[in-house]
Every structure is written in C-alpha cells, then in structure tokens.
C-alpha cells in the first residue's frame, strides 16, 4: 500500500464543509432531532431519525474491497470496521444498508434510507454542494489497470495509449475514477458500471480495455479475483475519503468527527487500516 502523508491540514476543505453545514441547515427546515418515525421508506423524511432508536445506519456499496465488501453476507473492510468503531464511540448500534455507489449521495440528500454514507467516498467540491463530509479518514489515489497480456497499453506508454479513441475504460458510475478518466483520457470511451466489481469483470471479459478507480481498491481487486490484470498508470490525486452526512444534520456530523478524532488519537484507525490493507 502506498504511503501518503499530509502535512498541512486542508484548510479549504474544512472551511467549505463548515460553511456548507452552517449555511444550508437553515434552508433544510426542521432539524433532525425533532423528527420521529421509523419507516425507512418515508419520503423525504429528515435524516438522523434512526438514531432515535439507538442505531446509526450507514449506506454503503459493498463492491469496493478493501473498504467495503460482502464476505459470506458479512460487511467487511476498512469502512465497515470504521463504521462499527464509530457507532461504538457514539453508543449506537451499527447497521449497513446496501445502495449502489452512485445512489449513496442522493440517498443521503433525500434522507430516510440512511444516516450517513460510508463507502470510500472521496471529498469533492461537487459532492460538498449536496452533503456534508466528516473529517477524512483515508487518502487514496487513482490507478488504471489492464489485462496482463495487453501489449497495446503498458506502463511506459499508458498516458498516451489510454487517451485513444480505440480504448474503452470501465469505471464505476458516479465515482471519482469516472471523473478522472473523463478528464485525463478524453479521447477514450468511458463505460460506467453501477457496480465496481463489474468494471473489472468487463476488462476480464474483454468488454473494456482498462479499469480506472481508486488505487487501494484496484490493488485489492488485482490481489484477489483479478490477478491476471496489472496496474499501468497511477496518479497521486490524494483523494480524501470521508463520511457523507446530510447537510440537515450537523449534530451527527459533529459527533462523527469527534469519534473519528478519538479513533485517530487512540490508534484504532491506524490499526484498522493496517488490518484491512495488510
């Protein structure tokens, strides 16, 4: 796993996140704590309601090892461990709900289905327009992988070879990888899959030439089921993973940030990273 370091706190992020929370809670109407009800299907209900029942519900797309994955029906991975640790800090029961990645931010915006999105979500200003982000807990980069026997695209020529109209790049719908591929390989055809695993399957099946996504996940996929693929391109985009929380729910944001800080201080977060990235 790649070592990344952060020297200066990202002042910009913090400011905007705070501004977003403060500014937009005003138009959001009722605050979470005043609402009641437990029907997850209730339309446009306020977030945070499930916390009244002593549990916190995270939306996650379990197709993203080592962050979130389903193993024998169990939610495993760094994010999943983190979610449980945070819930424990908050004295809440932890629950996961499975939502396709590109539907998580909309689900948090709409509310009702989950209290927070925990699914390897990178902080971007666009997403910050829609949701609040916790303090980041992990920094990741972009990577592009191809089939090992691909002689057209190699580590040496990847920058140019990927940016060709003959190339199809598989990405996850709504991911930063999708943006990255579109921005840096504008000549290639970008094909989006709701499920990231399917993007790898597409490359294996020859339906796409390359797959682009977060580095840690690409590495993990290649270490597992897709060992015949190899990374040909990486870019240190330094995306910060954070937990997405409704802008209407600053109480939860504060609580989660506090929990993350505690977990960082007592070394739990590093332990979890070591455990899942090992």
């Amino acid at each position, binding site marked *: 796993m*790649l*070592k*990344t*370091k*952060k*020297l*200066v706190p*990202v002042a*910009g*992020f913090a*400011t*905007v996140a705070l501004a977003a929370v403060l500014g937009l809670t005003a*138009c*959001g*109407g009722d605050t979470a704590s005043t609402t009641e009800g437990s029907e997850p299907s209730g*339309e*446009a209900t306020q977030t945070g309601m499930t916390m009244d029942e002593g549990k916190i519900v995270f939306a996650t797309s379990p197709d993203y090892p080592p962050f979130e994955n389903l193993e024998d029906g169990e939610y495993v991975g760094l994010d999943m461990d983190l979610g449980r640790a945070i819930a424990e800090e908050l004295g809440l029961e932890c629950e996961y709900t499975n939502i396709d990645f*590109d*539907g998580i*931010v*909309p689900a948090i*915006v*709409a509310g009702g289905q989950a209290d927070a999105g925990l699914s390897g979500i990178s902080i971007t*200003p*666009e997403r910050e*327009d*829609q*949701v609040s982000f916790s303090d980041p807990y992990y*920094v990741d*980069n972009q990577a592009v992988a191809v089939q090992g026997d691909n002689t057209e695209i190699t580590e040496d020529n990847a920058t140019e070879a990927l940016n060709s109209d003959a190339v199809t790049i*598989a990405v996850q*719908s*709504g991911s930063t990888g*999708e*943006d990255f*591929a*579109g*921005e*840096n*390989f*504008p*000549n*290639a055809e*970008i*094909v*989006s*899959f*709701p*499920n990231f695993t*399917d993007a790898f*399957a*597409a490359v*294996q*099946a*020859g*339906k*796409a030439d390359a797959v682009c996504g977060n580095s840690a996940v690409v590495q993990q996929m290649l270490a597992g089921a897709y060992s015949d693929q190899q990374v040909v391109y*990486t870019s*240190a985009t*330094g995306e910060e993973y954070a937990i997405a929380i409704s802008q209407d729910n600053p109480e939860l944001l504060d609580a989660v940030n506090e929990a993350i800080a505690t977990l960082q201080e007592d070394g739990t977060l590093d332990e979890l990273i070591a455990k899942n990235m090992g």
Partner: protein
Amino acid sequence: MRTTRRRITAAFIAFALCLSGIFGASALAPSQASAMDIVRCTGRPNSDDDKTTIMGATQSRITFEASVAKDEGVSELTLHIPDGTTFGTDDLQVTLLTGDDLMTRTEVAYDVAADGQDLAITFDEPIMQEGHLNVIVYDVFFPQAGGDMQVEATYKLASGAEETVEDIPAISVTGISATEALSQWLSEQSWVQAWNSNRFLRLFFDPTILVTSFPVVLNGFFMSIAVVAVAFPLAIPLGLALALMRLSKRAVIRGIATTYVNLVRGTPLFLQIYIAFFGLPLAGIDIPNFPLGVVVMCMNSGAYMCEIYRAGILSINKGQNEAARSLGMTRAQTMIYVILPQMFRIVIPNLTSEFIVLYKDTSLLAAVGVMELVMYARTIVASTGSITPYIVAAVFYLIITLPLSKVTRHLEERVRGGRKRKRAGSRSDDAAKEVAHA
C-alpha cells in the same frame, strides 16, 4: 519536446540561437534547462451528456501539473486564468508529488492572492525537491460560449529569475447548450427558488434539473427504443419457432424447446444479462455491447412469446385444423395458412404487453454499462443528488407504456368481443349475379 523559448538575458538568447540549428535533431537537452515543464492542464468534464465534455458556465475545475527540477527553488507560481473564466480560491489545492513513481504527496504551505485573472501562489519555502507540482483550482466556470481556454503560467526562482511555463495545452470548452442556458436562467427566477425551497419539490421536480436532464435522458430513450426495436421483431420468429417446436410430434424437438423455455423463464433476466455480458466473452465469444444487449433481450423475450403463441395456437378451435386437413392440406400448410393467421390476431394484445415488459426491462442493461434510459438518469442523479432525472426517465417510459396499455386493452376487447370484422363493402357485380335459392 519541441520548444521555443524567449529569454531575457542575452546569454540565453545566444544559447537558444546556437541551438536552433539543431532544433529538430536534439530536442531533449534544452528542455531540461527550464525549472518547470508542463505535465498536464485539464478541465474537469461537467456534462451530463458524456463524460469527457467540458461545458461553459457550468462548475468545473482546472488541474495544472508541472514538473519542478531539483534545487531550482521555485518560490512563486502565477496562473493566468483565461478571460471570462471565474474561479474560486478557497478550495485551492497545491500538492507536490515526489518519489520515483510520483506517488508521494506533499502538501505545500503557501499564500494565495487573486488579482483579476491572475492567481498568485507564493510558497512559504521555495521548492527544492524534484517532483511534480499539482495545482487544482476549484469553482471554475468557463465562459458560456466555450472555446479553447489557454491557461498561462509564470514562476519565480530563488535566483529571482522570472520564467514562463511553455506549451501549456489549451482546455477545449464546449459552449453551453440551450437547455443548460434555460436551466441557469430558471435557477435565477424567484418562483423557481421558491419552488425549490420545498424539499420534496426540489428533490423530485427541480425545474432546473428537469430541463437539463431531459435532452440527456432522451439519449437513453433512443438507446432503449433501439434495443427493443431490434430485439422485439427478432423475438417474434424466435418465439414462433419455439412454439412450433413445443407442439412438435417429435419428443427430441419438443424437449429442446421446452428446456430452453423453462431455463429462460425460470431464471431472472438480470442474471441472463450478467451471464451473457461477462460469461460469453470468457468463453471466447465476443460481441459488442449493443448487439449483445439486443440478443439477450431477444432470446429472453422469445421464450415468453413462445408461451404466448402456444397458448394462442391451443386456443384455436380444433375444428379449424380438421377443416383444413379434411381439404387435403398438410400439417404445415394448415399451420401456416389457417392456424397462425388466426393465432396472431388472438395474441396481439399479449404481444403488446410483452413489448411493454421488454421495453421496461431494457433498464436492466444499465448494470452492464449499456447507456440506456436509467443509466443516463443515474449519472445525473449521481452528480446532482436530485431524484428529478429519475422522474424524467419515468416520463420517457410512460410515454410508450401508457398509450400501448390503452391499445392493449382495446385489442383485448376486440378479441374477446368475437371475430367480427368490418366488411370491405360488397361488390356490385357479385350482387348482380345472385342466384335465388329456395
């Protein structure tokens, strides 16, 4: 790298002139001389329509990356953002990428000052390390008209020398579409703002997203229509062949068709799509997405149609068969000229329903990267967080399914209401030749 350089000092000019003789032959040596060389300068695509288009007047960001030579001590970088482009400085991200693979990120401490179109970044410490300096400018809005956006960059070295980063690629920006313009106009209207202040209305019926998603989702509509428009007509003969096989006297033929129909009808279409898209290529059968999608939908629909036809054929009075056979017609002739024409009239309502089902089921192809209705809507939902594009997609389904359902009901009534058909009008010569019978 082909470069031409302007230097302030005479020495540099002389050096450059000297080199110009071997300009094409040796390109590497002189470019090593500059402290910063451009690596990339890109804008973030922001179109819902496709993932590589950068539109004007829509939020984007500029990523500027240049290599920094060792020990040059770059102390200040000034980016000149093209005229007409606005940008924010709050989210500015400045990172130095180092290491062999440039994968080590070093946040750089800096001050930033914006002066008109100039964005000046002053580093607390001059950069001595070798690496790539990566600057991301957020909240960028390119001019509405679009065009090639040329970012310019100058930098100061510790020595005090001021230099220019050469050959920065221009960012190609597409002019804003009419609907985008309409959307932006809408977003400024007070009634729209009032409308959107209601959480429910904003989430489901945001007018600004409504107008922008319409043309985008329309692309998916064409794709979905294209899939059914090809798959459905192909499924008709397939289903017919299967139905005839199932009615065959020969057990083997009957068995093949029955097995096929049971397999297809007994498993979810979703699963069949996965198997076809990810399984077939592994078996060495490589078919491009669109035809493959068509084939899967067709093969699935064929099985359902088989049962529709079979029921239709079985519902036809046995006397029809006997009458035809008693006239000396073969089984095949009876089927072709007597049974099937009647069967088709009976099954048209069911076939219409099957068409509706097939049309709706094209949405399942979203899972395997076919850009159909739902997939287009999804992309916009992911980037806007509003459910509105789904509502737009629903409208595109309904404009096909609602009229067809009505037609189906009408046809069902006709079929149930007997086989009476309107006469084409009697011919007078026949009438004249009428022979009276007792």
